């Protein structure tokens, strides 16, 4: 397990370095997609299929939008034959993702089990029971949802607000007023 994660870490690092240092915008965008792909594979190995699905959906959508944005000024058609190597690689990746996803889905509790009791585990040791029992005494918040998202999982909330901040920043940058001719941009 450790060596798998080491491999993915090195893969992510190389992809990030190429994405930062390359001159070609399109290959930089594709390297950013590769980073997200490696991250979602790591989530699959950590038996967190929901996060892996979210990650891969976001990465695929972002990759398509970014590629469309970068090649709009460039050529928008593909010339030449389909490459045999490309088809083989994409089929292999598709099979690997599907297999790993099916393997990770086995770890989920069965359909119909109560949400806060995982199948086959002792009730005292799982995290969700601890949230219900100790949220009031440990954080003082009567609302258990607030206790989870702002105390135990506050790091996640910080990430969410960062995502919101960045997306608003992107919207403001892309939609701001452009003056005529000069190309100068005002807020």
């Amino acid at each position, binding site marked *: 397990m450790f060596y798998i994660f080491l491999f993915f870490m090195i893969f992510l690092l190389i992809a990030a370095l190429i994405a930062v240092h390359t001159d070609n915008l399109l290959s930089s965008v594709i390297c950013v997609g590769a980073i997200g792909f490696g991250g979602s594979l790591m989530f699959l190995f950590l038996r967190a299929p929901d996060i892996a699905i979210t990650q891969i959906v976001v990465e695929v959508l972002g990759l398509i939008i970014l590629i469309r944005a970068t090649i709009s000024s460039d050529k928008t058609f593909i010339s030449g034959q389909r490459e045999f190597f490309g088809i083989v690689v994409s089929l292999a990746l598709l099979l690997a993702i599907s297999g790993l996803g099916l393997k990770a889905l086995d770890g989920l509790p069965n359909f119909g089990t109560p949400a806060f009791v995982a199948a086959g585990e002792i009730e005292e040791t799982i995290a969700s029971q601890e949230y219900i029992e100790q949220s*009031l005494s*440990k*954080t*003082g*918040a*009567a*609302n258990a*949802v*607030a*206790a989870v*998202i*702002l*105390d135990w999982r*506050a*790091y996640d*909330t*910080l990430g969410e*607000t*960062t995502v*919101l*901040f960045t997306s*608003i920043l992107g*919207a*403001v940058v892309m*939609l*701001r*007023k452009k003056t*005529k001719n000069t190309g100068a941009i005002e*807020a």
Partner: protein
Amino acid sequence: MKGMTVIVKSISRWVKMLIFLFGIYVTLFGHLTPGGGFAGGVILAGSYILLMLAFGREYAEDNLSLVVTSKLDCVGALLFVAIALSGLLYGSAAFFYNFLHQEIQAEKVKALDLVSAGAIPLSNIAICLKVGASLFMVVLILSVFRCDFSAGEREVS
């Protein structure tokens, strides 16, 4: 005359304060009742969006301009990071450590009080500022963009 008809204007003049107060309530009582920073921020932004729809963009921008909105956005984000970092500085050094909870417990604050749960209400307020300002800013920016786009097309033709 900018905006919608007299009926919409007079009703939204009454309703806007109620929506704003409800947003503040949802934010402040987020650790006791369902709700919290995200929901409260959306409701606060909704009151300003109602103002913008009923009275026109200029009126809403006079009340809360784009510059002030973006500053509120940044203040919310900074406040949330500051709460996280103060958890690192006080108490047991952990990011997002609930550093106020123990001091409040020492003063024998009952559970279900408004001032309980340590740093969670503060985080709720920071997230409310952040989410409300961001959503209102998006709507404002989109309306500004639409106006400029149509103006630009007229100039071209």
